[in-house]
């Protein structure tokens, strides 16, 4: 049984600051770490492998070369291989182009299940898994929180989904794509101290457009169907704190605040 986990590395939200003068997000200071939902997906795959050691798990990501180092901590767990698709041609790809690039790799691989996350901390569109599913003609489910391991190994997954106040249970035949929601059910296993420095570079493969052979029109901005024309901060003013009392005036002020911010 082969599972490919699609993982994305996203900047640490807390550290991100907005440069108001230049109107840009200062991403340089924010370090990249694995998107939490993707981490859950990988943890779920590893949990499966714990029970069924013959399972092969690969991680697939697209991004700058520097991301290859981040792979290492993931590979030091029981992950068999890590593939990083990286090419300057791909910079500026929206989800549409990204899905096509990833599919260019995936379509040649025999894969039983693809595990990935539902939400990403930066864009959070959830487009890529669904679009890859469309291109590969697979089924796909969002907000997966759990699944029956035995059934999954047999080729027919029983999947639990948390959606809109309900828990839904689905049957899905392989091959299929499961998009997980960050869950306390699946935690990444620890790397043991002895493994911290273990060299796993032989498990990493970096692929460029030379291997994937896509045309320039299919990738980057040219291959994208959407374009970010501009970005801006939602609240352009600094947080100004006001102090009120518990008299009618004060309570009214609080009420107005709650209404204004759509809490009521």
């Amino acid at each position, binding site marked *: 049984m082969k599972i490919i986990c699609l993982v994305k590395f996203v900047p640490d939200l807390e550290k991100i600051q907005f440069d108001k003068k230049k109107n840009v997000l200062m991403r340089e200071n924010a370090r990249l770490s694995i998107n939490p939902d993707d981490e859950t997906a990988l943890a779920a795959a590893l949990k499966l492998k714990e029970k069924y050691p013959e399972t092969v798990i690969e991680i697939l990501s697209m991004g700058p070369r520097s991301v290859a180092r981040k792979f290492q901590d993931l590979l030091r767990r029981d992950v068999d291989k890590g593939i990083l698709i990286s090419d300057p041609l791909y910079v500026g790809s929206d989800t549409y182009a990204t899905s096509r690039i990833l599919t260019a790799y995936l379509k040649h691989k025999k894969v039983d299940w693809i595990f990935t996350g539902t939400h990403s901390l930066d864009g959070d569109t959830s487009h890529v898994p669904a679009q890859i599913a469309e291109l590969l003609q697979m089924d796909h489910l969002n907000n997966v929180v759990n699944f029956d391991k035995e059934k999954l190994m047999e080729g027919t997954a029983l999947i639990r989904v948390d959606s809109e106040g309900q828990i839904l249970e689905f049957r899905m035949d392989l091959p299929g794509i499961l998009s997980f929601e960050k869950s306390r059910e699946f935690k990444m296993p620890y790397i043991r101290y002895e493994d911290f420095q273990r060299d796993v570079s032989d498990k990493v493969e970096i692929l460029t457009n030379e291997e994937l052979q896509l045309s320039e029109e299919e990738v980057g901005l040219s291959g994208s169907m959407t374009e970010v024309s501009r970005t801006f901060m939602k609240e352009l003013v600094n947080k100004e704190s006001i*102090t009120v009392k518990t008299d009618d005036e004060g309570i009214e002020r609080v009420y107005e605040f709650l209404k204004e911010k759509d809490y009521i």
Partner: protein
Amino acid sequence: MKKCLIYVEKIHPRDAVDLLDAVDRLYGSENAKVYGFGDEEVLQSLEGYFDVLIPSGNEQLDPYNIKTLTNRLEELHEAFIFDSILILATHIGRMLAPRLAMRLQTGLVADITGINADGDRIELIRPAYSGKLMAAITIRGTGPMMMTVRQKVFQWEEKRVSNSQWNLFEFKDSGVVQKKNASMELLRSEDKEGFTDIRESEILVAGGRGTASYFVELESLAKVLNAQVAASRKIIDQQIAPRRIQVGQSGKTVNPKLYIAIGISGAIQHIEGLKNVEHVIAVNKKSRAPICSIADIVVEGDGKEFIEKLLRRIRRGDEI
């Protein structure tokens, strides 16, 4: 005249009508011919809102049969060539829309919260980086322009036509029983029951040492705000509330949009449990308690009085 398709989900008919507001912002309601696609039963309740109603087929389509839905929507687009397709950003919508966009080889913008339309130049606004940043997106290519919209972002009340026109479209796979061949199937559903983890709540009403004598009252405020009750360590120490709602370094780390801290001084161990909170209202007898330095509104006074008065005000609602 622009042509617009709206997918009407079985359990969210009224929310689909709200998308007419988006259509209005895109083109002006009078410049658009809006098609609604969904189950016949559901469409019947939506007469007068859509120009054209297209029922999904002669049998009820499993809403989770996304592959078939994609096929049918593709057929519709081939037949009518829509300028835009709008889908609610529900669980189904978020799986359906990207598939359809890929099928139609067109652009899709997810979770839009605003529209800037200047003639043919249309910008779709959406949040990024957990709302820290807003992005304005334009669609490239020949269309159709596709977008998903969260519920309650737009609102629409009025009927647009005296009679909707029904189009009994014949789909290629009409009549073919879907369920047996489905590679994916919804087996059962149940309501999520019981306690929700405070980490999942958008609004938290938290009580600290100052609320020990009236901690139960926080629940009533939480209820009207659709919020959950949380507590600082001091309340847990006194066994007034269970540990699972303790916020702090040694308890849970929460990131609600709104945190109402009542009678909490704001010791660093508590504050460390708050990450990425958008708004804080601090209610405290001491307006200089440390927590007040991170609050949008500081309410100086008694917490119990605050809860009672605010409840009354909220229940009174909007009066002229």
